[in-house]
């Protein structure tokens, strides 16, 4: 890792416990999503964040309520971390009418404007310029909102990434680009097809931004770099690029066993699993075993309830099909 800074994370233990709870919730939710996929209840595709939870939790904890998140198709974690309840997210995966978008978006497009989750985008790189636009709007209206845009290492090689970085830097926009570098695209190692070792951080320098690489499996470290970047953005100092090193525990998407990855690499990263690491640290820093067990049990109960509620959700009706193409609520293109 390029940086040796010691990260202490949030000052309050209570905040750290919240951040632990968030990571545990993301872990248990994704595990349940996977199980429901095996039961053939999750249709279509889905991309889990198992192993990458510290990034979503660290950022969401550092962000203000009215900041904006822009996520990718690997967006369950970022959606939940901003406070969206589990039931509508799970129901959306199941294609039910009580889903977050009543089944019209699916796993790859989770959106909750109410929670500042401004969409999950499934075309690689598309949302970087869109996040710039939201940041422009905050700048223009003089609010102190910040747009935080998450994407993968593979997404650094598409044109819109480069357009967005230059644009954000030139306009000094309050936007934070966060590369979740899990080393792999779908089935190809990103360094095999990329001209630099750190695909986001090394490129950031070319756009006049600081080179920031952080341990993405350490929620405190993520929280700290997020806080610094958010403060910069709010102070009008412009965009930041953060490359957070992490690893996905499973395959790229639901059907992928991830067999192309060397066993030693997988073992190395499982040893760096962010959740046991954070748990041990909390115990060191004064949390009690009972507190942590209670959090874990509480989350488990929440996942059970969400599962039951999602499964009990209705099948979306035909009335939804032709709704909301246009602002008038309909889909008519002629008179």
């Amino acid at each position: 890792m390029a940086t040796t800074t010691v990260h202490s994370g949030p000052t309050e233990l209570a905040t750290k416990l919240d951040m632990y709870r968030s990571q545990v919730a993301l872990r248990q939710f994704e595990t349940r999503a996977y199980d429901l996929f095996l039961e053939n209840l999750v249709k279509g595709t889905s991309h889990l964040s198992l192993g990458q939870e510290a990034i979503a939790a660290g950022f969401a904890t550092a962000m203000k309520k009215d900041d904006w998140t822009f996520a990718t198709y690997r967006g369950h974690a970022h959606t939940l971390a901003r406070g969206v309840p589990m039931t509508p997210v799970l129901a959306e995966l199941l294609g039910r009418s009580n889903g977050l978008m009543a089944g019209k978006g699916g796993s790859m497009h989770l959106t909750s404007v109410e929670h500042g989750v401004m969409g999950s985008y499934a075309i690689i790189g598309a949302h970087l310029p869109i996040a710039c636009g939201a940041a422009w709007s905050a700048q223009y209206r003089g609010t102190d909102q910040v747009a935080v845009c998450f994407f993968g290492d593979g997404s650094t090689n598409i044109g819109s990434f480069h357009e967005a970085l230059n644009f954000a830097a030139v306009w000094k926009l309050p936007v934070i680009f966060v590369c979740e570098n899990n080393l792999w695209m779908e089935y190809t190692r990103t360094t095999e097809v990329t001209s630099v070792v750190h695909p986001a951080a090394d490129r950031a320098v070319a756009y006049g931004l600081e080179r920031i690489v952080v341990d993405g499996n350490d929620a405190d470290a993520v929280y700290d770099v997020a806080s610094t970047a958010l403060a910069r953005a709010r102070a009008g100092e412009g965009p930041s690029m953060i490359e957070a090193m992490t690893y996905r525990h499973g395959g790229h998407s639901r059907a992928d066993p991830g067999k192309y990855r060397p066993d030693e690499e997988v073992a190395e990263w499982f040893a760096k699993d962010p959740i046991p690491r954070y748990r041990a640290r909390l115990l060191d820093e004064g949390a009690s075993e009972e507190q942590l067990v209670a959090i874990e049990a509480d989350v488990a109960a929440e996942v059970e309830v969400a599962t039951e509620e999602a499964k009990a959700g209705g099948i979306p009706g035909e009335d939804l099909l032709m709704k909301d193409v246009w602002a008038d609520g309909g889909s008519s293109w002629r008179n």
Partner: protein
Amino acid sequence: MAQLTFREAIARGIAQEMRRDESVVLLGEDIGAAGGVFKGTVGLLDEFGGVRVRDTPISEQAIVGAAMGAAMTGLRPIAEIMFSDFFAVCWDIVANEIAKSRYMTNGQMSFPLVIRSGNGGGLRFGAQHSQSVENWAMMIPGLKVVVPSNALDVIGLMAASIRDDDPVVFLEAKVLYSSKMDVPDGEIVDTLGSAKVLRTGSDATLVALGAMVPKALDAAQELAASGIDCTVVDVRSLVPLDTSTILREVGATGRMFTVEENPRLCGWGGELSSIVSEEIFYDLDGPIVRITTPHIPLPAADALEDMAIPSVERIVTTVTKSMNA
């Protein structure tokens, strides 16, 4: 009353809306001090300042992406894509992101934005700066598509597009930029989805769009001299489409000729032909005929380009031949 060019009408329509609504902002390449390569934004930087009128890098994805992000968070951006051919480099954001996101999010998001662009041929710019791309935009669910044919309509339809809560692709026929017209003073606001009947005749109905409208009018005049009396309908907006006016006017004469600048395949006239034959087939007295640019990339040489794009002469001969068949 003032005489305005089509390009001046663009700036006037935008300025009218910027004065009444602070959330209207502009972005694009060379639109500020330079006033746009086609001079559609002249004077706007001076009146509204650099915070509302912003030059961008040559980054079409960033331009329309930023417009989208700004629109979803409360602004009413107007983005300029210099030549409509360049939509091809940012079409993902237009077709996959802007157009689909309201639907995908179950109505959580709104995209009140306008993307203006210089469209079509006639300036001898060659294949990459001349295509009429209205059919690209028309086929995407979630996009409105507006194509004015004169300065007065530019102002009113621009105002309506800016006020509309849906994304509008606003295509400006480059060949019309210098056309002039008397325009009344004061606020002008039109409605999207209303075709205009510009001339009424009893024998045939010419349905035209954008730069083809003045040609259809000239052709109608020549045809009248030879005894073929034509109605001319200016479609003005492809989405929403004013089918009721078009069906009424085609039904009244019993013949429809579309005049389209887009290359032949999947042009808007194809869709219109299908609607007319499904809904008023028994009111037709003869075949529907489409007069279009052939299915080719546009050539640069003036002689060749003139052969490709429907001309007054081609309209006259095609209509005459078909009416006398």
